[in-house]
């Protein structure tokens, strides 16, 4: 980093970020890990008051600067989702990594992003004209719109949940994972590891339209097979849980 800024208002942050070679610094687990010389200037968002996690209406609003650790301990967040937040990063990084940073980073293998998708995640974005909300799926697909700043993610915390994943070891970042949620009788399954970003799957044909990119942990063919198997498992588990499970 060539320079460091710590604005205290969202307006000041947006103004700083509007200049070239400026980059938002959330938890720093990604940005600060790269020690190569850079012209970039960091705009640290820690003083913006964006770390609250609260119940708003029927949903939960998770501030963009709330850490994964804070999310994993918040009583406002459903148990299974807390566990997923905890598993997203090890102890020494989850105290730094933020929900906003997670969304901005758009990692294809993030189970927490898949979970937010299944919980009808939306992203609050602050821009020059104020704050508005976008579907998380759209933000993941298209990236954070230029000139805006993630201020929160909101989710519907209700419903029954099932998770299935395949990795090299129990705590490995899954090669492919399925996060299923059943609410109001409808099942949504989000998948990781089968597309450039986590995606909501078609329950009847979970691999429809997917063209995963293979790597050393799993070929495209294998990832599609995992998508089928893991989607079936979470779907069956949610079906077995029935309406009672939603409560």
């Amino acid at each position, binding site marked *: *980093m*060539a*320079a*460091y800024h*710590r604005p205290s208002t969202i307006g000041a942050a947006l103004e700083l970020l509007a200049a070239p070679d400026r980059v938002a*610094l959330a*938890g*720093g*687990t990604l940005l*600060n*890990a*790269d*020690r*190569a*010389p*850079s012209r970039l*200037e*960091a705009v*640290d968002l*820690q003083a913006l008051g964006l770390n609250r996690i609260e119940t708003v209406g029927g949903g939960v609003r998770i501030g963009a600067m709330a850490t994964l*650790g804070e999310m994993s301990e918040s009583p406002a967040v459903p148990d299974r989702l807390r566990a997923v937040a*905890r598993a997203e*990063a*090890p*102890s*020494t*990084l*989850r*105290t*730094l990594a933020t929900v906003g940073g997670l969304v901005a980073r758009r990692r294809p293998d993030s189970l927490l992003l898949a979970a937010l998708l299944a919980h009808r995640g939306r992203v609050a974005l602050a821009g020059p004209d104020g704050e508005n909300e976008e579907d998380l799926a759209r933000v993941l697909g298209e990236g954070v719109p230029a000139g805006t700043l993630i201020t929160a993610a909101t989710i519907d915390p209700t419903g029954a949940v099932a998770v299935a994943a*395949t*990795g*090299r*070891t*129990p*705590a*490995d*970042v899954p*090669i492919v994972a399925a996060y299923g949620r059943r609410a109001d009788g409808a099942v949504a399954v989000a998948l990781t590891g089968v597309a450039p970003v986590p995606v909501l799957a078609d329950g009847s044909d979970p691999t429809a339209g997917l063209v995963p990119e293979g*790597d*050393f*942990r*799993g*070929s495209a063919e*294998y990832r599609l*097979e*995992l998508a089928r*198997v*893991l989607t079936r498992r979470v779907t069956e588990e949610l079906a077995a849980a029935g309406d009672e499970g939603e409560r």
Partner: protein
Amino acid sequence: MEIAFELNGAPAVVEAAPHESLRAVLRRLGMFSVHYGSDSGETGAAAVLFDGKLASADVISAAQADGHAVTTVEALNVSPELDPIQAAFAAVGAFQSGYSAGAMILGAKALLEADPDPSEAAIRDMLSGILDRETAYAKPVEAVKRAAAVLRGDRPEPFGPLVLEPMTDGVRPTAVSPDDEPPAGPASVPRLVPSREVPDMAVVGRPEVKVDAVRLAKGNPAFTDDIEPRGMLYAKVLRSPHAHARITRIDDSKARGMPGVRAVLHHGNTPRVKYASGGQSWPNPHPYDQVSFDDKVRHVGDRVAAVAADTVEIAAEAVRLIEVDYEVLPAVFDEREAMAPGAPVIHDEDDTHHICDPERNLVHHITARRGDLESAFATAPHAFEQTFRVHQVQQCPIEPHISVAWLDSDERMVVRTATQVPFHTRRMLAPLIGMDIKDIRVIKPRIGGGFGAKQEMLIEDIVAHLAIATRRPVRLELDRAEEFYASRTRHPQTITFRTAVDHDGKLLAQDMYVLGNTGPYGTHGFTVQIVSGLRGLSSYNASAKRFTCDVVYTNIPVPGAYRGYGGPQGEFALEAHMEDVARALGADVIDFKRLNWVKVGDEMDIAPHLGERAPAEGELDEYPKIMSSGIEECMAQGLRESGWHRRNDPAWKRPADRPHIRRGIGFAFAMHGTAIPFLDMGGCSIKLNDDGSFNMLIGATDLGTGADTVIGQIAAEVLGVPLDDIKVYSSDTDVTPFDTGAYASSTTYISGTAALRAAEAVRKRLKERAAMLLEIDEPCTIELRNRRAHAPDGRSVSLEEIALDSLHMQEHEQIMGTASHVSPDCPPPFGAQLAEVEVDVETGQVTVTKLVMAVDCGVAINPITASGQVEGGMTQALGYAHCEEMVLDDEGRMVNPSFGPYKIYRADEMPETVVYLVQTMEDSGPFGAKAVAEIPKDGVAPAVRNAILDATGVAINDLPFTPERVWRALRAHA
């Protein structure tokens, strides 16, 4: 910019650059407990409490920390005594190298402040961000539980082994009843099965706290990077982007012109002196195929140039400014292709000698044989052949390679370095830098793990060259990616076994062919492969044996020494093959192996033919024999602990509630060596101090293994004093006696015997002086115990009185003893390795749920450090079997040079690990000891493989058992 924050409760104000990490700033402020493991924070070695929460200081910028509270473990160092949390970690042997001790202690502090009685899951979750390459996390978990108990006001029992009754007579097998439950106890506690032949001793065999526990628990400056000479420069290395290329032009003018750059070295300005970098005894095995900087590069990451500059950042930028033109050459990576016609010739220079066939990339062709193999196969009723492939992994010490070199006031070269081989390094460095050995001093401080990667003169020549060029101290530390692709790794191999068996299931012949991949340089390439042969052909008796091996050059990152040293490769193939032979014969696998494995009195017939200086064939006058083996006790304890009988329980193997899961248990017979006979040598010097304590100087190199402690215990036992009265100083070539170094499972056995003999010499003189003071004619009747010399008539004199008398009163002398030791023997430790797995037959995911190792290491001098070696070794071996792999792309670039993509086990995903120490009395070892450090690396991969076979009926002969590989094997089988 100015940063103000709270550090350990006090205000701190520092100047920091915007790019600087909090780790760098804390170290600059003298917080040496905060260690570098990587820049991306995933090792946790630099974790601190950030506003009370555990967080990696690698990925917190100093600027971010402005206004926050930071706590390091130094905050606990308010008195000479240890804080209760530090004390708990020391008490249970939770540290090996202690490189990440500060992070673990701080994590425990934060956890216990939030929850005074945390669950084991919560403790493991806390530890999930601190990678430990040395333990299986069992003892750190126990330390947190113990600290919690102490802080709650409980007084836990002293930590020690769980002593068990033997299940056998030590010789004959015994049947294990399914109703026989294994003993209950925490996983961190070794189960110790004593031998009647081993007497009770005062210090040996006791769970003594490590002699370096205080400095490690407090995070005191103990490691290479913790001392910074004034005016120190920082080095960076320009590395090759190509797997194979000739350097046609190099222009360093822009780099040299950059302010702050003090030297730039490359092949154009550095003497061309050929060497082999493996840290081995003189004369190092040929070929000498390396130079400090060459005009040809042979793997991605190979050295091109090095820069010394005022800061790391300037050095890194200068490296980028060096202009290099390459003539890119074809490359070859797979050992099975290296000798093919048309394969690129990797060593085409004319000044490398003793390559077997450079045109075919064949470095060595090795053979050894006993008996008439051809007749045995021609007449055998059963013959079997299988081929196995083992892959490339990295040692992954959390402390990367780091060296600091400077010229002292006498113009001698001093190198403070993270090495396992300080004496070899001194000798090998001398010709490269044009100095005499006498003008070089190599100091080994504490090391943050080595595992063989540091049995190498890897970067010491670079810092020494730069120190000469600049006449200033120079420091070079590898980053994590460099540690992966530019240090050393485990040799990949393709291994073929042929076995001939008679009608009764007895082996008639075994024939092993190893095609070893030594990468671009031959370092350790010869010896590692012969150890594969040694391990592959020593475990079972057969009247005819043959070992054939081709070692080839390729363009992969350089293989070298890695704990186990060829053993894990050979034993994976052997134990998988023997399992399959048993199944093919319809025999019980344990009965079949037991019928054939070596027993007390059997000759180790191939061993003398497989050595650096061994004859390949022909009868020798004498062959070494097995003199001690506790394998039957290991088997009984291991089978009971594993619940072996469940292999025959369909309800257990196919759990009704998880229809896609199959369970299995696998076994591997493990056998290793103890030191290299007639080669490994250790020295020790002991002197008496005024107060009756002793200084002990040893060349042995403690990597975190506890060698200083164990060798101190041996001396303390002889001298009749507590361990605390032995002050151990190890590994400084100017000060301590010679030692070959920490490798080949030799330290306790070789260096420990040197210490035993030096202590015996001191004891003899102490008795003589005591006899003089007590006016007794026969000094040999005097016994040393409890810091006193006791006469048979009940009178005694203290060692302090003897010291004061001899140093100050009469017939003045310094009572001291010096000894060295080399052994003609190589007594093997034995072990029963068992693994329990669950296989998801739909996805191929393998979950290892339990590892059991019952090991006969002779007498464990310290059962806690010994069990720590087994726990940690098994965990590394589990990674080898299950999830670790260096992956190269088509151009030879490693695609996963960071933790995460390169997966090593962390605390919250470990299987249960249980260790049994089965005592035997090995008369050739100090107080009966044999080796323990490497045998845990041998059996895990075949045991997991055989467990998968037990669970699914599918045999997989390639490592590692990653989900897609298993899934494809299951599909092919179906």
